[in-house]
């Protein structure tokens, strides 16, 4: 069935396995009564259950929680955070500023764009190696295709302060030695030996750990969506408390014009 028939079949009704609200009565969440069966879940547990439909161990949830904690920096200079902060400075609303800042976090050189490429690389490479491919060939193919490997190298620095505390936590939880994590380190060693100047960063180790606890690339992408969130409200609040319009004010001298010379507009 396709065309208008397919559309007609879906008109006026939501057919779902994900859930529904029955106002004044109850809410169903992936086949469970939210206020009876799921009422004791903490928020991250419910969030991951909503994405996957699966339950995770307390150790796995602790690790997933730490990913969000370790990536939330209340620094209003960072591009996505700056959006939340500018919204505060212009006296917009917190929801608008922070929503836009989260949307901006879906970037090509950091955030969600890198996350998607990184988990696809690690999952794909592990499968290829299991099927007999050489690590060096997989890495070289990726470098050739993308001129880099997502999760290795970082736009503004060469090291990553998040890896050591995160891996220490993963060790205490017994989650630091899965096949994808070992592969992420093997890629790092290969790049180091080849002097590629692409050191592993948090965006490589996190998808590896998440792949080891069973998240698919799409599940991982949706899970990390709020990764920077906790750092954004402080940026909004502080700029809201300053005099309006005083966050990073740009004078005319702050704009370096590199375009054509002045000319006269000719009406068509």
């Amino acid at each position: 069935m396709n065309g208008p028939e397919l559309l007609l079949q879906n008109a006026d009704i939501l057919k779902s396995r994900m859930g529904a609200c029955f106002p004044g009565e109850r809410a169903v969440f992936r086949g469970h009564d939210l206020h009876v069966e799921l009422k004791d879940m903490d928020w991250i547990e419910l969030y991951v259950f909503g994405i996957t439909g699966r339950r995770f161990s307390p150790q796995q949830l602790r690790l997933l929680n730490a990913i969000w904690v370790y990536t939330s920096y209340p620094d209003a200079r960072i591009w996505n955070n700056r959006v939340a902060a500018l919204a505060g400075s212009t006296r917009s609303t917190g929801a608008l500023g922070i929503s836009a800042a989260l949307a901006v976090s879906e970037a090509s050189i950091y955030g969600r764009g890198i996350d998607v490429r990184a988990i696809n690389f690690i999952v794909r490479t592990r499968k290829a190696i299991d099927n007999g491919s050489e690590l060096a060939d997989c890495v070289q193919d990726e470098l050739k295709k993308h001129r880099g490997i997502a999760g290795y190298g970082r736009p503004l620095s060469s090291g990553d302060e998040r890896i050591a505390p995160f891996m220490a936590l993963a060790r205490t939880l017994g989650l630091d030695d899965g096949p994808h994590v070992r592969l992420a380190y093997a890629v790092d060693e290969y790049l180091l030996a080849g002097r590629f100047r692409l050191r592993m960063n948090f965006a490589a180790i996190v998808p590896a750990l998440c792949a080891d606890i069973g998240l698919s690339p799409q599940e991982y992408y949706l899970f990390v969506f709020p990764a920077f969130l906790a750092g954004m409200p402080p940026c909004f609040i502080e700029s809201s408390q300053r005099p309006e319009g005083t966050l990073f004010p740009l004078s005319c001298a702050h704009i370096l014009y590199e375009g054509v010379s002045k000319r006269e507009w000719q009406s068509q």
Partner: protein
Amino acid sequence: MDNDSKMEQIRTQIWLEEPEPDNLFATRAAYCHGYDVYGGMLGQSRWVEMLYLLFRGEAPTSEQAELLETLAVALANPGPRDPSVHAAMCGGVGGSTAASCLIAALAVGAGQHSGGREVFLAMDGWNECGTELAAWQLRISAPPDNKASIWPSPEHPPGFDPHGVSTATPVKQTLTRLAGIIPDSRLAWLEANLSSLELFAGRPLSMVGVAAAAFSDLGFSPEQGEMLHLLLRLPGAAAHALEQWQYGHKKFPFFKVELDNDPAGRTE
């Protein structure tokens, strides 16, 4: 990310601003690609000429301005059935902020089904295939690999209606009107070869396909076409969002739900 006391600058080839003598932060004159916006263009330039100038760096010819203006009228309101306008109305009906209604329209109108990303992909097709029918046939039968991206894999050839039966009348009317503006254009070629292209795609041309050809004729890059498509469809979204607030939520559809896995074994 070091703390450096020297003034940082934003580089631009688009915009020059000169300050008022008493305030570096107030503009005395602003130049867009060399043209004095408030002293020379205002009252002389049409809005679409400004739009074209901003993106292309040169004033449009009269034909180009007519093409962009005619396209802008065609795109101004996709109508309340369109998912992006539906999204804006979901904001409007609940009294959400004006910006959130537009953000909703942008987010839903950004995708690969009648949205900005579809325009991007269709324009990528024009860049690759030009007016070579055989190249289009090959591209439609074997679309480029889009894996490991934040965007899902396309489910239909970009620029064609996945649920269509025959070319919709407004699509034909728009194509005919636009194709008549610039001779030997891609739009004219599209109109002349429409039946062959629709045969390759197995689907009728959509408004996205017309818009992509028009943006391509105007010399815009796929990135610019994607932006303009997002921008030019906002007026309808805004008007319909405001209208639904006036009607009120009781007159806005909520739809029925049918759960496959209701723990109470019921559906609404």
